[in-house]
């Protein structure tokens, strides 16, 4: 079983994952990039929330023109060592200005959650043993950061300058 942590708390997952060959149910759906590209017009015409799940080798810039119509982009970690989604999230937030939900799905570790948070993820599909307390602990192990990212956190250089 998995559950969703969003904005720092357990959350209801309203998006129904839909296989590429399955009929679209009513309500919010989460589809693959291939499905989105195939049924783009029909999906956009439904006026219900749309989520697109990207594999780790899919650059979100292909969604640039449609991002304002998407509510969720799920980025997959096929294995925790595959760090491409860190760049994809950063591009989504900083370059493409995506303000919807960016969800981490797949195989990632407690110890990666803080990095994910920094680059722009705001939702995590986690396994049952992962608690919201662990989530907050992960975010608070390191107080300060050296480099700017998508979280808007003041860098150590900025904190020094403000002293």
């Amino acid at each position: 079983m998995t559950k969703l942590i969003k904005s720092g708390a357990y959350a209801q997952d309203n998006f129904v994952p839909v296989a590429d060959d399955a009929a679209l149910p009513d309500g919010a759906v989460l589809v693959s990039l291939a499905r989105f590209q195939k049924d783009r017009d029909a999906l956009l015409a439904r006026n219900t929330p749309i989520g697109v799940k990207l594999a780790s080798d899919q650059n979100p810039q292909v969604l640039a023109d449609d991002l304002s119509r998407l509510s969720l982009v799920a980025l997959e970690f096929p294995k925790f060592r595959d760090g491409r989604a860190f760049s994809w999230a950063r591009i989504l937030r900083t370059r493409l200005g995506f303000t919807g939900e960016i969800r981490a799905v797949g195989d990632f570790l407690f110890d990666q959650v803080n990095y994910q948070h920094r680059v722009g993820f705001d939702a995590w599909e986690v396994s049952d043993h992962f608690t919201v307390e662990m989530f907050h602990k992960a975010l608070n192990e390191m107080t300060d950061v050296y480099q700017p990212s998508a979280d808007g956190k003041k860098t150590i250089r900025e904190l020094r300058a403000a002293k």
Partner: protein
Amino acid sequence: MSEVTPNMYRYDEFDARFVAERTAQFKTQVERRLKGELTEDQFKPLRLMNGLYLQLHAYMLRVAVPYGTISSRQMRMLAHIARKYDKGYGHFTTRQNIQYNWPKLVDVPDILSDLASVEMHAIQTSGNCIRNVTADHFAGAAADEIEDPRPLAEIVRQWSSLHPEFVFLPRKFKIAVSGAPQDRAALAYHDMAVEIVRNAEGRTGYKVLVGGGMGRTPYIAQVLGDFVEKQDILAFMEAAMRVYNEQGRRDNIYKARIKILTNALGIKEMRRQVEIEFAEIKKTGGLQVPQEELDRITAYFAPPAFETGLSDEIPEAGKDFANWVKTNVHAHRQPGYAIATITLKTPGQVPGDATADQMDVIAELMDTFSVGEVRVSHEQNLVLPHVRKKDLPAIYARLKELDFACANAGLITDIIACPGLDYCDLANARSIPIAQSIALKFEDLARQHEIGELKIKISGCINACGHHHAGHIGILGVDKKGVEFYQLQLGGSGAEDASIGEVMGPGFTEHEIADAVERVVNLYLKTRQPGERFLDTYRRVGMAPFKDAAYEKEAA
């Protein structure tokens, strides 16, 4: 003599808290591992990011020495750690770090706390992230230097520390910096390298190289940016890192380094993509390095208060001393001063090793003679960067007591060797005994000086930690059906005339290899023209005569 604090980067409250929290974080990771909450597979990337390897016989802890600069206070702590947690010695590496070969996992958090107390850590000394940044070991002292590269190295260190986007890269990423035309940092063999250059208007900026590397597919780095403005350097680096993180191969660890991507895309396409990324990153402005920041960091590395009016002559102190001066003393930018290399290569010793007692004496030498500072060189030696020429005889005398006064810097016995099969989990063959047998064969100092500059580099496997591709004579240990063989490579260079050595042919056994090297060297002595180094002669005459000599074809 009291402890002298050199001019180098000093932690403020932010750096100190960062390292303290990171140490605490790793402590909990170790606890989770010991309790079984983390599998070894899950623990592995976490411990690697903290410098902890699991080797053949034990854990190995690699401690970062940012850009190779160590204070005497830090050196004493390194000695203390060797004594308390290890077997009384440490090993200085080709990446200017120090490794301990026998720490216990339960002790590692305490070691990291001890290190933190002297502003040191093991962050990002391994793992698929941006590794500890290396620099010219003569930085801030060399006569030929345009600018001290260490302020840039420190800026890069901070930017790359736990960079959230780049801690799970396709593979490790090594950055080196240099501020001098003479390349002492092996720039061309790095994933990314920065050389400080002066443009036509007389302004200094950064030439950025990408895609160099050793391993099973050696490449010489290519130019990614001819002249990057100083304030843009982090944006430029971040752009290159992002292109690599997105497109570097993840299906095969042997093809995952940026050198493979650079050559697959071609340098032109690589440049185009990085330029696009660079322009995008610059738009957000967050990574620009303001002049005030550059000035602030540079101030930490201000030159020490040099005495003026000193004689620029080196005193006479006998023939042995004169030999040592010839090889181990280098030109300093300040009249009356010199740079002195302490080679950790006395024939018979393990290249790069120093005992705790030796480290303590070196700390004393640092305080007494070199404003409390020493550098680790990528050739696994130590360097006293700022010594008065008049003190050189006293330094030499003290080094002699330590058995560290060998006049062999840059000579045939100043051998780089990886830890090899004596320690390393990856190795196919032993490196250390080969280095020792070659060094002992050429122990005679007059002969070494007669041979002149000759860099031998030995790796115990294809991963090339002993830099064999860059050796004038490179030696690669291979395993053939359970027997160790050693292949010769000739003509490599890690300097500004960088080149990849050429493989000679079938390997030699451990008993033959030193003799084969000797035959190669003898042919050089017979063939060389006046003023030619081994490398020059090789480049002039090519492999064939050396090959014949090595396999004794002449005699047949």
